[in-house]
């Protein structure tokens, strides 16, 4: 991260957004007083389940939505009063988006979007070629868009976001549905872009914890329109550290409900279809010894077939703070 002095890349104060209030009724509160500051040169992650308010926040910051109350500045400009100045400095890529016209070739499509940002013709063609190589679409440069696969179109859309070389880039689930290799290559490009282009900032929303861990300098965990925690990933991990995450593979006559492990919160997995075993996950506090837990399970009729332990991940942090996993969805809208 290479921060610079001056106004933050993004500064949000008491931001709220309520949908549907004008049509009568209380409406749906998508953002409930969000405060956030993202420094220039940061890759900042927004983590939250569906309906948490991530996309609403990005839409407000990219001038697509008005906030109901509160204030938001991007690159030092107010997103409502100076929307045009904000637009000159940002770009938005949303996963699953199908930008472009089917009759255009991939290269033409990128050129077209460059024109909408005022990029000169020659520079737009040069940049299109460069970005197509990055997203591994060089061979498809002259292919019409309507002949691309979904994944290829996704990658083209990602390249589109960089055509104007924006100061601040909003990436809303950019690798959604992409294959592992493509997603990894794009993450590497984002990291290199921020590192090499002075003062560039990325605000990323993602469902993939590994993506946030790998890419983000800081992460905000957001749920039901409120920021619950905001820090670097090591600092967030420290908030819930204290013990190990243990996963056991058990076999036995006893039913899972009969296992009693006082002081622990065990989570049982589904039975393995071939081996007939079940997994049992729990966090072991530092004052407890694993061997004691194993003896207790043996006394209850379970046989331990396998043991694995791991460090705290961002997913553990998320569950500890939000109270549920990312896959436990709420109401979409955010």
């Amino acid at each position, binding site marked *: 991260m290479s921060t*610079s*002095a*001056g*106004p933050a890349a993004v500064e949000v104060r008491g931001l709220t*957004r309520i*949908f549907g209030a*004008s049509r009568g009724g209380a409406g749906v509160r998508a953002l409930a007083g969000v405060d956030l500051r993202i420094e*220039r040169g940061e890759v900042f992650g927004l983590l939250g389940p569906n309906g948490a308010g991530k996309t*609403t926040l990005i*839409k407000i910051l*990219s*001038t*697509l*939505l*008005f906030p109901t109350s509160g204030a938001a500045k991007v*690159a*030092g*400009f107010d997103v409502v009063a*100076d929307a*045009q*100045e904000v*637009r*000159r*400095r*940002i*770009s*938005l890529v*949303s996963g699953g*988006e*199908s*930008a*472009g*016209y089917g*009759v*255009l070739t991939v290269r*033409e499509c990128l*050129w*077209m*979007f460059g*024109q*909408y*940002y*005022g*990029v*000169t*013709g020659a*520079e737009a063609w040069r940049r299109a070629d460069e970005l197509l190589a990055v997203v591994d679409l060089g061979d498809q440069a002259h292919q*019409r868009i309507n002949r691309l696969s979904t994944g290829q179109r996704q990658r083209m859309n990602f390249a589109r976001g960089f055509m*104007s*070389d924006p*100061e601040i880039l909003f990436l809303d689930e950019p690798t959604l549905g992409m294959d592992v290799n493509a997603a990894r290559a794009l993450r590497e490009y984002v990291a290199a872009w921020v590192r090499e*282009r*002075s*003062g*560039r*900032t990325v605000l990323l929303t993602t469902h993939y914890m590994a993506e946030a861990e790998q890419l983000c300098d800081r992460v905000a965990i957001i749920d039901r329109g409120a920021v619950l925690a905001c820090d670097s990933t090591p600092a967030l991990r420290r908030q819930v550290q204290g013990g190990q995450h243990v996963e056991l593979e058990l076999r036995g006559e006893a039913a899972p409900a009969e296992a009693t492990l006082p002081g622990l919160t065990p989570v049982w997995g589904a039975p393995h279809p071939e081996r007939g075993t079940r997994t049992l996950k729990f966090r072991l506090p530092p004052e407890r010894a694993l061997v004691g837990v194993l003896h207790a399970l043996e006394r209850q009729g379970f046989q331990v077939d396998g043991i694995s332990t791991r460090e705290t991940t961002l997913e553990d942090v998320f569950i500890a703070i939000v109270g549920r996993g990312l896959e436990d969805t709420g109401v979409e809208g955010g």
Partner: protein
Amino acid sequence: MRAPVPAPAHAAEAAIPPAGAFTLFRRTMMARAYVRWIGSMREPSYLLADAVFPTIGMASYVLLYRALGAPRSFETLAVLGGVLATYWLNVLWGMGTQLYWEKQQGQLQLYFVAPCSRMAILSGMALGGIAATTLRTVAALAVGFGLLGVRLPAFDPLALLGVFLVSMTALYAMGMILSSAFLLLGREAWHLANAVQEPVTFLSGLYFPLSTFGQFGLVAATLVPLGLGVDALRQVLLGRAAHGLMPVPAEVGVLAALSVVLLWLARFSLAHLENLAKREGRLTQRWQ
């Protein structure tokens, strides 16, 4: 458009120097026009739907006037109607329904997040539409003057071009308004486009002199710029034989005034629409 505010001193190093408002408008307009132009070149099915099929109606009128022994000027009048019908269809289906289609494709929010003028996008759509349609009118002219042997009298090409440009400005400005209106109507846009297609064709007097309507013709002509444009173009081509509604300079004056008013309304309606989208959180979303 407001003059660009200087970037704060701390701003990140810009890879691309910011373009001035006029340059950005021009680049956006030409890029959007390019899509229209190249789209019509790469999709041969458009040629059938937008160029060949409309000539069938035109040919019917020419043959009908010929069978009835009507003055030969009526045949020219029908060919001109056939040519202008292609522009009208392009305005209705190419301009009117376009923003709704853009929304469905997820493209509209990319326009709204870009720094380019929204009017530049609409102007590009119009410019590309006019260019592509002009190419298609060759089919109507070939059928009319080549296949059916309709005779074209001597005319002032500059006057014809001038009247044509003013007519197209007014007509496509109306298309820009339709595009915002249809976007607001959502899925009903297609039904509405279907519903207005024939009445407007009729009220514009594409295949008969508008003066046939009498006083009603005047009202109809002021409602739809296509009618006045057709009438003025006919008068440039055929003179008194066109049975014009008003003198050409008067019609051109009304068309120019209509162009200004309609362009302002188009700009206003699109800005209103964008504000509505931001306030209510819809219109840029595919599913809303």
